């Protein structure tokens, strides 16, 4: 598909490919929505006020004018896309549109009220944490050539065993370790099935997802609840002295749950290992051209075992975030499809940890916005009814579909993905 799109692009350099047209239309649509929201869903004199807990009011914008401006920017960018000259900054423009629309929706929902902006950013980072961890799991698996749709299942097992072992050992940190190990164990199962037994990797992943949904429920009802082991509590917020005193950035980055810190550290570490070490180069070779890697002496399957298992470890920690990081107990199916959203973040981030983190921030923002909107209850344009919370909850999922549909053709997946490797 991607190759085909490229071929079309080469043969008809002057015209726009159909996909380009879709994206441009999408941007036009966003612009139109912003203008409509500005015109019909805000009052003339309303302003959107952004505050901070410590500093008080940060800045205040007239809602309607801001929405009009941002909507116009969307139209302008859509116009730019029609000219070939803008091709070099196209990626930048896409991100600009993402940021502009995110900010515009913020302005819209806060019209007439005020919003704690750093709080919102904090909520975004927090919601992006499990997504980033899941997406890193995906990056490690897929860069080595194994498709992993079992991130959801690994996270669910992680969430479950975090609660179980945190209660048994009466230590949250033991729970975190157990979550990682359990995720790693599931990933090892995935690796054995797909490498040793050459099971289709999608099926193998689905098995782990079903096993996670059924197994965690079963064990929760049968073991945790009767034994009273289901409420270990949640991690406290750690404040790094001095650094957390910095206004705005301090509370955002340096006063968080330990899992958020772990995520940030792992993000840098994984990025370094995958892209800057010989080991990472070999691993990526296994995902792109295993035969070539084998020829120069890389043990392809060993490499895949290692990276899939390590990936599962990371996903397990991400799962622990749902139980120990948020509500301090286990609920059935508590990962609510976030593993798949993480997968979409990975694709959006072009199989790159930092890119995945940025994408996860976008999804996290949609999540945080959704929670915020349930409190503020903005009105729908024209009919002036509050938006039902269910529709807001749909937003991250629909966003995932849009991202996967809009981005997947242009992003480059590792070439040898999904194919078992057989030494010749």
């Amino acid at each position: 598909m991607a190759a085909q799109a490229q071929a079309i692009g080469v043969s008809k350099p002057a015209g726009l490919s159909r996909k380009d047209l879709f994206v441009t239309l999408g941007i036009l649509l966003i612009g139109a929505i912003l203008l409509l929201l500005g015109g019909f869903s805000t009052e003339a004199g309303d302003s959107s006020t952004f505050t901070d807990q410590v500093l008080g009011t940060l800045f205040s914008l007239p809602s309607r004018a801001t929405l009009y401006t941002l909507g116009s920017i969307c139209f302008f960018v859509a116009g730019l896309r029609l000219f070939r000259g803008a091709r070099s900054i196209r990626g930048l423009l896409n991100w600009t549109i993402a940021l502009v629309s995110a900010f515009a929706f913020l302005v819209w929902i806060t019209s007439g009220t005020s919003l704690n902006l750093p709080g919102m950013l904090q909520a975004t980072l927090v919601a992006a944490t499990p997504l980033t961890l899941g997406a890193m799991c995906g990056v490690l698996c897929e860069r080595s050539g194994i498709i992993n749709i079992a991130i959801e299942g690994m996270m669910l097992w992680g969430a479950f065993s975090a609660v179980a072992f945190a209660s048994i050992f009466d230590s949250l940190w033991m729970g975190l370790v157990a979550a990682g190990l359990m995720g790693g164990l599931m990933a090892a199962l995935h690796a054995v099935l797909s490498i040793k037994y050459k099971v289709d990797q999608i099926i193998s992943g689905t098995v782990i997802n079903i096993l996670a949904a059924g197994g965690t429920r079963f064990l929760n009802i049968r073991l945790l609840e009767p034994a009273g082991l289901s409420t270990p509590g949640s991690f406290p917020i750690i404040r790094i002295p001095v650094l957390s005193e910095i206004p705005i950035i301090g509370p955002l980055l340096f006063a968080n749950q330990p899992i958020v810190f772990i995520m940030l550290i792992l993000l840098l570490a994984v990025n370094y290992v995958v892209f800057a070490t010989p080991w990472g180069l070999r691993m990526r070779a296994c995902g792109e051209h295993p035969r070539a890697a084998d020829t120069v002496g890389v043990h392809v399957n060993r490499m895949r075992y290692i990276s899939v298992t390590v990936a599962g470890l990371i996903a397990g920690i991400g799962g622990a975030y749902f139980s120990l990081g948020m509500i301090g107990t286990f609920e059935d199916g508590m990962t609510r499809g976030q593993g798949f959203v993480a997968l979409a973040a990975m694709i959006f981030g072009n199989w790159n940890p930092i890119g995945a983190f940025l994408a996860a921030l976008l999804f996290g923002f949609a999540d945080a916005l959704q929670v915020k909107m349930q409190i503020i209850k903005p009105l729908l344009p024209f009919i002036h009814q509050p938006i039902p919370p269910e529709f807001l909850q749909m937003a991250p999922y629909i966003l995932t579909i849009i991202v996967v549909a809009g981005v997947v053709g242009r992003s480059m997946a590792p070439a040898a993905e999904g194919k078992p490797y057989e030494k010749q």
Partner: protein
Amino acid sequence: MAEQEKRPGLIRRIGAQPLWVRMLLFVALIVIVAPFSKWLILLLLLAIGLWPVTLLLGLAGLAVASIWRGGWPWMKDWLRRRLRGLVVPALSVVTALIIGGLVIMFTDQAVFQAMQEGGILEGIRLAFANLATAYKALYEGSLGNPRAIVEALGQVGGEEGLGPLLRVVRGPSDSLVQSVPYIFAGLAVALGFRAGLFNIGAEGQIGIGWLVAVVVGYSLTGLPAVVHLPLAILAGAVAGGLWAAIAGFLKARTGAHEVITTIMLNYVTFRLSAWLLCGPLELTQGTCRTQEIAESAYLPWFLERPVTIHWGFVLALIAAVLTGWFLFRTTWGFELRTVGANPSAARYGGMRVGKTFVLAMFLSGCLAGLAGVSQGLGITRNIALGFQAGYGFDSIALALLGKSHPVGVVGASLLFGVLRAGAGRMQSVAGVPTEIVQIVQSLVIIFIAAPAIIRAIYRLRKPREEELEVAVFSRGWGA
């Protein structure tokens, strides 16, 4: 063999007729059989309840038939041909049940307590006793109690009429009722597999089909059942199909992987139905359920309560036949299978791969929608919040177990129907959560997908090359 060519069998001769003749014959068959359906179904339920007797009768029949065809060697050959493909699936199920049994045994609080108080042996004894109770409940909940059935047969014709008999065949009936949505959903996933599509969204499509069928069922009144019922069924099926076609369209147009889009559509369905059922469609405040459908939209039951088996079962079997006919006897079915086997070759051969993706997803969604329809019009007769029963996710296992062939899917669905019906009873009698079925199912998928594990455990011979049929689904995210 030479004899057979001279005198083709009845089925062959009917198969050679034009399509409309076959359709007419089929309708005539249904019309003729319909008045006796009650007794036929009762006979079927009894045959399931007393399956050892049925099996012996079947073998005896086969032995009689073999007399004209060459005796024991023919019969042996016939059995071997039929059963060889079943060895690995059967052993997979058995192994999964054994492992499931171990899980039940060693996750029991009472067993832990007994181990602490009376030592390990005492604990293990209790564990086995509990497992026996659990699996006995599983059996009786799904296949009935044979002794009770024989006793009830003796009472037929007494003052209660069929009453005692109905009570004892409840287990087999529950199994068949549970297998109805399984057949539909399993066919849906199998059809997708044949086209190289992995439809994990059956759960959502079931919900959409259910919802639409129920809404059509109660919002239209005054129609005769002949019009209303087919209309409701069709509406549910098409709604499920269109919902799934979104994923097919996105895949055809943009290459978005259907695994992600269908799962995301599932979550959208759940939120959408939560809003509809607790909002605009709610009958009384706070119940989160719709009103009951009109009687003209009921899928009729064959017998009275508690035997709830309904016409959906027949519909499911018809759907299986039609799916098989579509896949293996029509041009579109051929295109669909070609695309599934090798999209590049299909494209090179002039087939429109994108169109096939959309069509396959649509049909797959129709079948999944029918699963919801059969539940909505046949069992619950309304739709309430929390309707998701996991049929959609289980259906993946069904399609794998049935090797994406309609006959296999029906067989696997019956098996899963039995497991599910039994699991309900196991939960109420032995306190084992029904989720054990999910664990067993995932083990079954593992063993079916990796037959090498089963072969290693039971030291089976390696299969010959032509029997190794590997379906490939994952082609990365782009294709």
